[in-house]
Every structure is written in structure tokens, then in C-alpha cells.
């Protein structure tokens, strides 16, 4: 017989009042195109790592904007830097370079 009752899991809600935007703003000062993503999903549809790992550069960018950095790093660790997403992006965003810039900015922050 299944257990009855309910469990509480930690809230997954995003509270925009508490988002620390400093690192994302640093990213946008170097890569302003990071703001132009419209979440069409072309990148994740073509990503060879997506079906095995859930990697999606659009989700990475969204998570960073919403302050969910750990989730973004978890996804990004599966990127193989093949650059297929850059080829298909309809807005011409250099996603591959953005992945590298994110690594540089956020790694620097970790070392501090």
C-alpha cells in the first residue's frame, strides 16, 4: 500500500527581489547578445549533449538571469563546445563564445 500524507520539498519559486545580478551583468557587459535570447529552443534541439544530459544554452542563460546559478553550472558542465547551437541560433548569438565567457567570469568569482 502506498503511503498517504504529503511531504514538503524546498520551494522552487523564483524571487526576483533577491536575485544577485552582478555576475550576469558582468557577462552582459562583455556579451550583450546574452540578453537577446527569445527561448526558441533551436539550440537545445540541435545540441548533441541535450538528450543525454539536459544541456540547453537557453536554459543556462535563463537560469543565470533568474539567479539559479548552480542549476546553470550543472547544465553547462555537459557542453562539449561543438558550436552547433551557434550555427542554428536565429538571432545570430555566439552561444559557444558565451559558454566560454560564462566559465571565465564565474570561475574567477569562485577563486576569490
Amino acid at each position, binding site marked *: 500500500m502506498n503511503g498517504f500524507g504529503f511531504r514538503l520539498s524546498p520551494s522552487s519559486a*523564483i524571487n526576483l*527581489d533577491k536575485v544577485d545580478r552582478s555576475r550576469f551583468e558582468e557577462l552582459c557587459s562583455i556579451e550583450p547578445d546574452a540578453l537577446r535570447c527569445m527561448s526558441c529552443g533551436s539550440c537545445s534541439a540541435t545540441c548533441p549533449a541535450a538528450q543525454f544530459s539536459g544541456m540547453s544554452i537557453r536554459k543556462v542563460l535563463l537560469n543565470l538571469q*533568474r539567479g539559479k546559478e548552480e542549476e546553470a553550472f550543472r547544465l553547462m558542465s555537459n557542453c562539449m563546445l561543438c558550436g552547433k547551437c551557434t550555427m542554428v541560433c536565429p538571432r545570430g548569438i555566439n552561444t559557444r563564445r558565451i559558454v566560454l565567457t560564462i566559465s571565465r567570469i564565474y570561475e574567477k568569482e569562485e577563486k576569490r
Partner: protein
Amino acid sequence: MKEIIVIIGGGIAGLEAASNLLKLGYSPIIIEKSDHLGGHVANWHKLFPDLTPAKDLVDELIASSKDANIFLNTEVSFINRLKDSYNIMLSNGISIITKYILMTTGFRLFEASKKEEYGYGIYNQVITNSDLEHWFNTGQDKRIDESPMNAIGFVHCVGSRDEKARNSQCSKVCCITAIKQAIELKEKFPDAQIYCFYMDLRLFGKKFEDFYTKAQRDHGIHFIRGRVSEVGENIEGKVIVKAEDTLAGKPIKVTLDLLVLMSGMVCNPDSSKTASMMALPIDSDGFLKSSDNVFRITASPKKGIFYAGACTGPKTVPETLAEARSAVLDIHSHITSQEK
């Protein structure tokens, strides 16, 4: 003989039609219910996508139609069908006999207080797109204090695409208007975070998409896909907005200093009232029904009655002006074919 053409509605469609009818040698009569010409556009500040001052457009239209007979503060009391013309009785006691009537009765802004969950009329921090333009124009709104704002939100599709509000149509101009107003507010309050809550972004017109990417990239406006579900007030007098970020698949919450509701365009009840005097049909969206929605948008099914502008559905300013000119040409060809 100068043919008399009665234009019902002194908004931009009515003015542009009058100015073109004058050029063709006709004598247009404009009947306007309110005390000013230019309709909704006269209360607007700037127009998308080039931020053209609305006042320039309205002033130019008023100047070019000044030779028309204009009745302000006047309504149509009733209309009688005569053998091949119409007898229009006005609220000021004047009656006009004409063969041609041009309906430019426009739209009405959706009453935002009907969507109670957004708190318009309940919280002072919640205003509409029209209130915001009024504030841009006059700098006066007792709900808005001049202290710098930290966070501002926009709710798209208020009363549009909403079957519960009995308006299933898209109001067409609110997406681009929200982007325009977001940019204008960002320029006023550069440190503020600005959020647009949308269901879809419908940026169909010339340069609209460029305007959108400019808002994202150059102004850092945040676009959140998800309809606002409720608005509440906190102890500091700010509003708390709840929605779902459907792209992230997570609930989202933000505290705002100001929330702007993008009220949509709905059919003007005055327009339906006047239409009923001439037994003109109403389309399924509540707006006036053209004789054909593709080929004869400016023609009514009744002889001598024509339409221009938002009385047949939501339209942009350039579309309205183009339709006014097109209706004038229709009337002109109708008159010249009668003369033969």
C-alpha cells in the same frame, strides 16, 4: 454641387478622411462626442516605433481638416432612412440629410478594473497604459510620486485574448506599446529593473522586432513568459506580483513600485449604438462587420455607409490612416459612378 459626407467620430480616422474629402472638393461634416478632436491619439505621448510625438500628428491632421464642418460635444440622436439618403438628427438639434456616412467611431479601452486580480482601482501602484501616457504628457498623476523607482512591471494582454472578459481578439498594438513604454520608463529611471509579463509577443509591424531586441539588449528589459495571476500589496505600499515563469517552469514573484496594465481595445459601445440605428451588422468580435473582411474592409453592407479605422477591429495608427484614405477613395468612386 458639393456632396455632403457625414463623418461620425473625430479621431485620427475621421480627421484624415475629412482632409482628403476636402481635397477632392466634398464637404465633410465631423460629429464628435467629446470636447476635442484626435480621439485616443490626442491623449498619447509618443508613437511607436520611431517615438514620433503624437501631438505633431494630431496637430497636422486638425490643421488639414479645419475647413470641414465640425461639431464637438455632439452625439447622433437618431438616423432615419429616406429613399436614397439618410436624415441624421444630432443632439444639438441640427439635422443633416446626406447620402454618405463614414463611421470612424473607433474603439474603447478595456476597463482594467474588470480584471480584479490585477488590482486596478484597488492599489495606487497599478495604472494602465493610457494613464502612463497621460503622465508622460502632463507629469501629473497623484498615484505616481516622483521618487526614483527600483522595479516596474508591465502586464500584457489585459482584457485581450481573454474569453472570460468577453474579448477573444488580440488588440494588436499592446505588445509594441509595452516595449515602447518600458524603454521610456527605463530612460526616466535608469536604475530600475523592468519586467514585461507576456503570453506571446506579437511584433508584426515594420521595425517592431528591432524595437524588441533593442529593448532586450540595449535597455536590459526583462521579458517573462507567463500571465500574472495575482497582485497584492505589502506593508511598505509596494505591489507583489505572482506569475509562472513558463520558460523556466517555475513560479515567480517580484515586488514592484509600479505596475502598468496593457488594457486592450474593445468595441466602442457608442459605435454599436449608432450602428443599430442603421441596422448595421456586428461581427463576432463585437466590432462593426465589413461587407468583406479581406476585399471590402471599408464597405458596410448598407448603401452609402462606409467604415474606417478601429470601429471594425484593433488597428495601428498607420493602418487607421491608410484605411481612412481608402474609404475616401471608395466614397469618391461611388459618387462619380452615380454621376455617370
